[in-house]
């Protein structure tokens, strides 16, 4: 037992913690506020507290916890809402007062789950192989994995409380739920490098800036550019098995909204509620700052846990900038020498290590699973050269930059086609016939239209040759008819990949016809005045109508001959 000597907000110094280890948990003061040791000198420890420290005083007791910062994993995660330390928020009080005892925990632990054994007694089961499952029907089955060894006991099928033993394997007792340290990655067998696409249902992403299972994406954008809406869209519609949504230092109303919506929406793949495949970690901006720092790690740990069951998982972190700010805050309070803009010198390596936990792997048990990480970045003043944005770009495979001008023009999602990249796009499109060519044409037309727009602004569009004016027209058709996708539209909120292809091809066919016509001396001004709305609104139409809409426009164009 040690003694608190200094309290400066979330930074607490303690003396007399003999034998304590780095990153060990400590219970501070009479309310046993959780904290984690982040520096040790002799028996003096510097601690980051995960709760509001008001009233904590020098002289108060500090007790060693004996274990590193850990999260409670188990079948209760899917469909639940948790704080940054993965403590359930459902059932906690209206005001989150650290001095009030957490009532929810006991209730949760007492809940029973329908356990089913998958192996027989006496068998030897390799580490990471499922020995039992909990299948509630709506969520993906929760698998209990073997620690490796001979199964000397296994529980009969039937209800099982989370904390009860379900098996003894290699002399080790196995329970449904367990505590897992969060700062170290869970082990796997091998990492796969060949990219397999994750479908997001957002056209601009799936066609131009695809993300792979196990990939990493950063989404930088100033306030109001649409980071949260885009991330929520992906959380709802991507074809992953499990989604971990980490609200890291963002808004309470948004969390309430996403939870309500996930509860309402049906998963198109399973027919269950989307909430049942989702774990929500809600550490809003007014909740303690250091738990925000931890929430990123608890989120990835949960994802790795489900990856080890052979699932494709996606971690969504909104916003990683708030996490970095928590690092900076603690660094500054502990007097660490700051680097750029007050951020600690290890900011870059912390970011790299976080994104490195993504990947598509063969698990220890031989299954294939993945962790994809998609993190929002909130650059101060929209400045893309600031440290968090600049460093993050170095470590991710895809960058979806959101553009303020597009957002102000209500072009949503405001993903900048010029300022974004997807390093695995080439490898992923190579596998699908025609995909690389389609992507090349669409992005080529957009880039060419941008160049010509700049030119036209200087010289006037009238001075451009006919075929270039068609490129300008093509740019508009692609932006309005393809890239823009309203999250609020009941039909267009999500777009199947087949439909994405259909719309892109229909637009390209129209552009091709326009080019042919001007080559045959049809006046370009006449073409520009045609009614393109059938094809521009094809995205709101039923899929089987898209070809007909294309033909309507093509026929109208044909009449000029």
């Amino acid at each position: 037992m040690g003694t608190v000597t200094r309290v400066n907000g979330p930074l607490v110094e303690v003396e007399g913690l003999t034998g304590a280890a780095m990153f060990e948990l400590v219970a501070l003061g009479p309310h046993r506020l959780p904290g984690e040791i982040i520096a040790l000198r002799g028996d003096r420890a510097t601690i980051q507290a995960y709760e509001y420290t008001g009233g904590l005083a020098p002289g108060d007791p500090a007790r060693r916890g004996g274990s590193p910062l850990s999260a409670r994993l188990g079948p209760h995660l899917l469909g639940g809402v948790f704080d940054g330390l993965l403590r359930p928020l459902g059932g906690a009080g209206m005001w989150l007062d650290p001095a009030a005892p957490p009532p929810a925990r006991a209730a949760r632990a007492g809940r029973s789950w329908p356990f089913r054994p998958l192996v027989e007694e006496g068998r030897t089961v390799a580490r990471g192989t499922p020995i039992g499952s909990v299948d509630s029907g709506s969520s993906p089955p929760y698998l209990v994995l073997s620690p490796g060894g001979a199964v000397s006991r296994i529980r009969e099928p039937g209800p099982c409380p989370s904390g009860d033993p379900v098996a003894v394997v290699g002399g080790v007792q196995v329970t449904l739920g367990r505590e897992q340290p969060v700062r170290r990655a869970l082990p796997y067998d091998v990492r796969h490098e060949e990219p397999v696409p994750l479908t997001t249902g957002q056209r601009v992403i799936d066609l131009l800036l695809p993300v792979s299972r196990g990939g990493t994406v950063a989404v930088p954008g100033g306030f109001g550019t649409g980071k949260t809406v885009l991330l929520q869209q992906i959380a709802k519609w991507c074809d992953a098995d499990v989604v971990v949504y980490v609200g890291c230092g963002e808004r309470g109303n948004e969390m309430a909204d996403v939870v309500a919506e996930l509860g309402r929406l049906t998963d198109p793949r399973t027919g269950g509620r989307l909430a049942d495949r989702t774990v929500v970690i809600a550490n809003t901006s007014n909740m303690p700052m250091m738990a925000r720092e931890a929430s990123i790690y608890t989120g990835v740990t949960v994802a790795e846990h489900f990856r080890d069951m052979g699932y494709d998982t996606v971690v969504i972190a909104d916003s990683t900038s708030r996490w970095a700010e928590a690092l900076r805050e603690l660094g500054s309070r502990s007097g660490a020498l700051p680097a750029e803009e007050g951020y600690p010198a290890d900011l870059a390596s912390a970011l790299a290590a976080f994104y490195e936990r993504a990947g598509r792997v063969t698990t220890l048990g031989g299954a294939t699973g993945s962790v994809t990480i998609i993190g929002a970045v909130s650059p101060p003043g929209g400045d893309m050269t600031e440290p968090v944005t600049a460093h993050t770009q170095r470590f991710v495979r895809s960058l979806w930059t959101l553009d303020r001008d597009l957002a102000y023009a209500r072009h949503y999602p405001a993903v900048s086609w010029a300022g974004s990249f997807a390093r695995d796009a080439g490898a992923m499109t190579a596998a699908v016939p025609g995909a690389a060519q389609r992507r090349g044409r669409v992005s080529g037309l957009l880039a060419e239209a941008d160049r010509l727009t700049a030119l036209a602004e200087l010289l006037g569009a009238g001075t451009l040759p006919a075929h270039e004016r068609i490129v300008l027209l093509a740019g508009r058709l692609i932006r309005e008819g393809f890239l823009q996708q309203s999250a609020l539209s009941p039909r267009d909120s999500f777009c199947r990949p087949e439909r994405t292809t259909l719309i892109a091809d229909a637009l390209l066919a129209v552009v091709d016809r326009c080019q042919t016509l001007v080559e045959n001396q049809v006046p370009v001004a006449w073409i520009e005045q045609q009614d393109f709305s059938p094809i521009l609104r094809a995205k709101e139409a039923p899929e089987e109508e898209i070809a007909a809409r294309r033909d309507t426009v093509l026929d109208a164009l044909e009449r000029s001959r």
Partner: protein
Amino acid sequence: MTVWAPVEYTDVAELRGPLVMVRGTRGVGWDEYASIELETGERRHGLVLEADHDLAVVQVFEGTAGIRAEGTRVTFAGRPMRIPVGPGWLGRVCDGGGRPLDGGPPVAGAADAAVNGFPLNPTLREPPSEPVLTGISAIDLLTTLVRGQKIAVFSAAGLPHLKLAAQIAAQAGAGGEPFTVVFAAIGLTHADAATVRDRLEERSAAGELTLLLNLADDPVIERILTPRLALTIAEHLAFTVGRHVLAVLADMTSYCEALREVSAARGEIPARRAYPGYLYSDLASLYERCGRVRGRPGSLTVLPVLSMPAGDITHPVPDLTGYITEGQILLTRNVSAYPHIDPLSSLSRMMRAGAGPGRTRPEHVDLAAQIIAALSRARQARELAELVGESALSAVDRRHLALAEAFEHRLLAQRGDELRSLGETFDRAWDVVSMLPRRELTMLSSEALDAGYREER
């Protein structure tokens, strides 16, 4: 139950800026409330910013001017700062520290609450879903305020944001349900404060207003306290008493400057423009106190008002505010008529939840989107006209320019004492969109057009 620690400390080791360093303290906790008694008998108040062994660093709200190392006595409350809460605040005018300015007795309450509040459990938040109507056309139509949201007013020096804030505070309502305003004036000039006070006179007399006034010549550090008092009072009225409450915090730039002053005095490592690195979290701890609670009747809507230094929206105060609030109402000199709202740069992110069928008008969201789209096209047309001359514009582009003109005169321009009903606002909005040929109005349904479009144009 206020139990004052009996111990009085007299060893003032250092005085720096707004800080008093007290030596020899025992068991004094972080963020504890402190009372400082000067030799003269004057009593000031503060909070513990750091507790290091036997040293307590206290931030004094009233400032340290006149405090001497000798003869000063400091006591600690043994807990964070609390204030009385309840309907007793209604109809009162107090200073930025909650002391009466209206000649009345000190405000008492049946209950008390911590000024920092506690985070509201996100799983118990009820998503906002009904409007707060302000009687200001540009706001009600295009950036509808929604009960339980937070939305900022961004302005620049010389623009009448206080007049607008006072107008909103005076006129806002929740469709006939009891409505309450808590107005925190932070660092206002006497003239501005007098204007606000006059404008809100009626609301105050009706017992629907609490006014907290921290003036430009009041202690700077008290500005850190003023919004917290306002929000603590407002939170209780909303979630315990069950009223719809609007908290107006103006000017948050003055608040942030006070925060920066304390940070500098403590020698903290600054982030952008010398503001402390925790500015985002600090502002969030204020703005996030808005909301609705599941199963409870009231709501708290928070409206921070701030002037952007040098009109720069990337300055940390507007920037970080924008990252926290659910939208902004931007005032600009480019719009010549009061209330100077720039419709294209303003956005209420929750609007969809508070506007539309059963809340305002069935066509509301589409009509607003149509006007924004048309104004955006008009802006492009104007830019083009500057290059090639207006005569080179197409007929449709010229109609859009006419619409933008009509928008500004017919809809946006409004007197500071003019309360427009929703009906009148929609009347004017239909006049404006009817400047365009009907076939251009692609965002409105044909039913809406049949009912609202004015053919005679």
